[in-house]
């Protein structure tokens, strides 16, 4: 135990002495802390305040579409006035198709429409774009003209019909379970953290182990104390360093947001207002999910002798992390589906899926406890197995060893 604590102390100090680690932590924390003060310093256009909405209205009034129309089929005869028919655009009428096309070409108008019949038109545009919704907007109003004409020709009161059809229905939502919609964004962000942190820090654990091999320190270490102390100490130290860094960065953001919440008008509540139960589940599954990943990274790091071989060596765990992340993304809107429920018990997947279930679905406390115990047990078994691989990989200097070969060798050693 004493040696184990010594390893943790030494390995943790390695992180805290690393300039990259310290600078990264400080810069990100400071950026987030002061970044969230921005609404107090400058006006942010996207923030919803009274004065800004006035500006929006003015802008909307000023930014009407500039449309040109050639009424080939006489659609606009005996119908609504142009301003009433197309309130969102300044309309210029053209006498010929050629004139309209020239105007569109010369950008005198933004878009042109040839009205062939009440239910048929041609859209003229210079360059199309993915985000062009002009046609959709035009059709909405063009349909109104058709409806007006049809109802009026049938001697029906158009205004009354429209009023009936657009009567608003009032409703109140009462959430008895969890607010899946409200939870979406913070779950999404926490999932990104669960994915990115192990990939980044796991790589650091693997590099630390490989460096011990390449610098030949490992033989002195394994003859000085048990490989269990070394590997568990190393992984736990990396977890402490990770928690400290993430904690400091998130903490500074949370504190800053709580100070500046009013200035933001509560706009970021959907990210920062995380329910306690979801936070607890995120913390437990996040930490033990990270530990599990770090153990695997350490084992894979011990199978190579050169740091340049790490990328290839850690491919299996990177793939597992990617697959589990994409499965979780697929399950984000299906919190109670069978695959999310089953996956929430399987280590690697449970880290994401149990969070989704707690934040967005229905889950019993015993289910969470069972999943926690499975993750905890997997960590212990993996840790002990990894310690054996680490010990065995100690003196295998040279070509990288495949994980499958490592297991075979372990089996042979045990036999």
């Amino acid at each position: 135990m004493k040696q184990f604590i010594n390893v943790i102390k030494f390995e943790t100090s390695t992180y805290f002495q690393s300039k990259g680690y310290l600078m990264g932590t400080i810069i990100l924390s400071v950026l987030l802390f002061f970044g969230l003060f921005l609404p107090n310093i400058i006006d942010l256009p996207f923030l919803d305040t009274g004065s800004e909405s006035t500006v929006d209205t003015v802008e909307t009034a000023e930014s009407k579409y500039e449309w040109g129309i050639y009424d080939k089929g006489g659609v606009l005869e005996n119908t609504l006035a142009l301003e009433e028919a197309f309130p969102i655009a300044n309309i210029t009428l053209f006498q010929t198709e050629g004139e309209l096309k020239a105007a569109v070409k010369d950008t005198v108008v933004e878009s042109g429409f040839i009205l062939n019949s009440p239910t048929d038109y041609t859209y003229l545009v210079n360059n199309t774009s993915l985000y062009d919704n002009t046609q959709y907007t035009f059709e909405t109003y063009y349909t109104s003209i058709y409806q007006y004409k049809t109802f009026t020709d049938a001697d029906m009161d158009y205004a009354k019909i429209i009023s009936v059809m657009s009567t608003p229905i009032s409703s109140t939502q009462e959430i008895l379970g969890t607010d899946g919609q409200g939870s979406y964004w913070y779950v999404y962000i926490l999932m990104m953290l669960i994915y990115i942190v192990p990939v980044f820090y796991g790589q650091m654990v693997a590099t630390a182990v490989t460096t011990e091999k390449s610098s030949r320190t490992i033989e002195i270490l394994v003859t000085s104390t048990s490989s269990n102390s070394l590997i568990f100490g190393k992984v736990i130290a990396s977890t402490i360093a990770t928690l400290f860094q993430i904690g400091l960065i998130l903490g500074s953001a949370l504190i800053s947001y709580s100070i500046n919440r009013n200035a933001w008008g509560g706009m970021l509540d959907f990210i920062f207002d995380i329910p306690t139960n979801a936070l607890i589940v995120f913390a437990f599954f996040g930490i033990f999910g990270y530990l599990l990943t770090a153990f695997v990274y350490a084992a894979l790091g011990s199978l190579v002798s050169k740091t340049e071989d790490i990328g290839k060596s850690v491919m299996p765990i990177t793939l597992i992390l990617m697959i589990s992340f994409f499965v979780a993304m697929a399950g984000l809107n299906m919190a109670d589906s069978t695959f999310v429920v089953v996956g929430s018990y399987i280590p690697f997947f449970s880290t994401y899926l149990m969070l989704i279930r707690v934040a967005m679905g229905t889950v019993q406390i015993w289910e969470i406890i069972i999943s926690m115990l499975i993750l905890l047990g997997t960590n212990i078994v993996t840790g002990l197995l990894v310690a054996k691989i680490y010990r065995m990989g100690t003196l295998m200097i040279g070509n990288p060893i495949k994980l499958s070969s490592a297991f075979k060798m372990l089996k042979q050693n045990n036999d």
Partner: protein
Amino acid sequence: MKLEIKNLRKSFGEKEVLCGISFSVEEGKALGLLGRNGAGKTTTIRILMDVFKANEGTILLDGKPFVPTNNQIGYLPEERGLYPKKKIGEQIAYLACLRGMNAADAKKNTLKWMTRLGVEQYLNQKLDTLSKGNQQKVQLAQTLVCDPKIVILDEPFSGLDPVNSQILKDVIIELIEANKLVIFSSHQMSYVEEFCEHIAIVNHGEIVLEGHIKDIKKEYSKNRLILSAVNYSITDLKTLCENELSQIIHIVEVKKDVLILGLKNNNTKNSLLKTILNTDIEVEKFSIYEPTLTDIFVDKAGDNQ
């Protein structure tokens, strides 16, 4: 304290690298484990340090199974290495703590050994900023930092210049005087001869010779004599001896300027001398043969074996 290695066997795949290694060593004495490259010295030491498990065999300390982690051992591996980017003082103290020392003693001993080895000025420097020789001294400091009772040094002299070799030699002599049990492997016979009472020569995974150097040398010099002549070249002298003295002696070895002769049957040195004096050989050298350790090593582990 007595460490006994009995019948160690180890195979890597199909290849058997140790075929029943046995030797013993006591406190206050140094055992020189000698052998050519690939003979099995490092594997033996690594089994001793529990880096590898032996396929067969036992290691006993005072008659009880030897568990390295239960004893204070100073181990200098053949593959030297420490953290290149960590401060030297910190990492040596860390290794001492891993071997069971408390932090204060670890710090004190780090300073003690760094000073003893003349590298105390580098305590707060990173290892990779030091020259190779000074890095070797730092390695030795980490080996001895926990005041070990057993010291195992794998090729400790490799890469050391004569000055640093002398420092290491002095340290090993101090360790022996301090009643430590010292085992070290080496190719450099001159060092081994200087402070080892006991040697074990390993060849192809077997101990081919073990015992006290004095006894071994005595055994080697028994019935062996050196002869050279003023009036004959070595080649002519050899021919003469084979023709005229073959009843009394056989030629053991032809050296650059002497012949090494072995006495046959119950012949004595005096009778040989009398016979030689009756020939026309004008004796230049006639003495008892005293083999060097290199001679013994080459004889036991050379290509002819």
